[in-house]
């Protein structure tokens, strides 16, 4: 059943620009909100949140959020937390590399085969969590 926009899980990646891990966070988000779980998930621009946009702040406080961070600075997690967001899950791209020793993910502008493989795994992990948060049977 389709969820209303106001009840969709928010998948919030870091800015994801300038580093390959950030690009993977962004692409995984798109995979989830446009492909795997378009009816139950949505994304939100982190810059809106850090600039204090009222709608963005209200959204992270009232809807379950999954943050995805490329690098250890954890911009997404920290800023959603700072805004009083309801963080149901925090995902780190670097953690997904643990099962892929020596993987070559690509560059900050273009993912290579390994990069897409790991991105798809992250996306599947997030999609499963979205389903769980929406009352599904996953995980």
């Amino acid at each position: 059943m389709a969820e209303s926009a106001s009840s969709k899980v928010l998948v919030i990646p870091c800015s994801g620009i300038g580093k390959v891990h950030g690009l993977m966070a962004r692409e995984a988000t798109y995979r989830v909100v446009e492909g795997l779980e378009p009816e139950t998930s949505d994304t939100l621009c982190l810059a809106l949140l850090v600039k204090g946009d009222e709608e963005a702040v209200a959204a992270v406080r009232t809807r379950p959020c999954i943050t995805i961070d490329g690098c250890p600075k954890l911009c997404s997690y920290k800023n959603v937390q700072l805004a009083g967001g309801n963080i149901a899950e925090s995902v780190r791209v670097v953690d997904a590399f643990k099962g892929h020793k020596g993987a070559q993910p690509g560059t900050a502008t273009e993912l290579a085969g390994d990069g897409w493989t790991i991105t798809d795994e992250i996306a599947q992990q997030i999609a499963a969590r979205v389903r769980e948060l929406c009352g599904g049977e996953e995980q």
Partner: protein
Amino acid sequence: MAERFAVLPCNGLDKAVGPLAREIALAVVEACQGELVCPVLFNNLPARYTKALELPLIVIDGCGTRCATKLAGEHELKTARKLQVAEALKLMGESAGESLTPDAQRLALCRLLTERLLSAPEEGTALDSEAAFAEPVEYATVTHDKFIFRIPRQGYLFNENHCWARLAGNRARVGISDYMQQELGDLTFCELPEVGTEVGQFDAVGSVESVKAVSDIISPVSGRVVAVNPAVAETPEIINEDPYVHGWVAELELHDLESDRALLLEGEAYLALVRQKATDYRP
């Protein structure tokens, strides 16, 4: 090699235009071997980018929220060049589409906007008038007795002070309308603003004087003056002869066209205003 820039884009995520801003930012950085400024990290740790921001700065916004511009403003960064992708696409008669993943057509538009951004002129010089403002102008006319008033059909915005803004990318040229120049009569003097002046919407951006009266030129748009037209200061009658093209007064780098536009008239609406005014016209 091209001049190096620091590039501050918006986050570019949750609207279709956002990923286009990101594509352009990455392409600019690659082309000029510049420095990319992550907007969120910059907001949290500005010191991280102290060195990068010694370079001239390009600010790229996707949507009208203009997060990157706001961020630059809050940190008092001087902006060398600026692009708002949604507005630029609109001026090109294009749109960002619906998908967060740009298709080939949108990527081609990104390449075009990247080239434009990197080839933008230095402050103090007008955009290449042969290119950016060279589109031929098609006029509608209002006739009253022996008087004929011309109004450009497209590409111009007007205020009710009979001043216009002609748009090209994130810049606009401003001047006075044919109706106003005829009402004033032969112009004897045109005062230009100084390059670098910040102009709010409906602020004076210069003045014109005729044998009948002195009148401020009320800017339809907000922005920073990046060029002026010295020809009209030397020869004000250019404005009488060709008010909409060669009679431009100042060129502005736009601050917030989307907001400004709400208080302006398109060609058709201004035509109706002039038609109404023309019935009372006493030269």
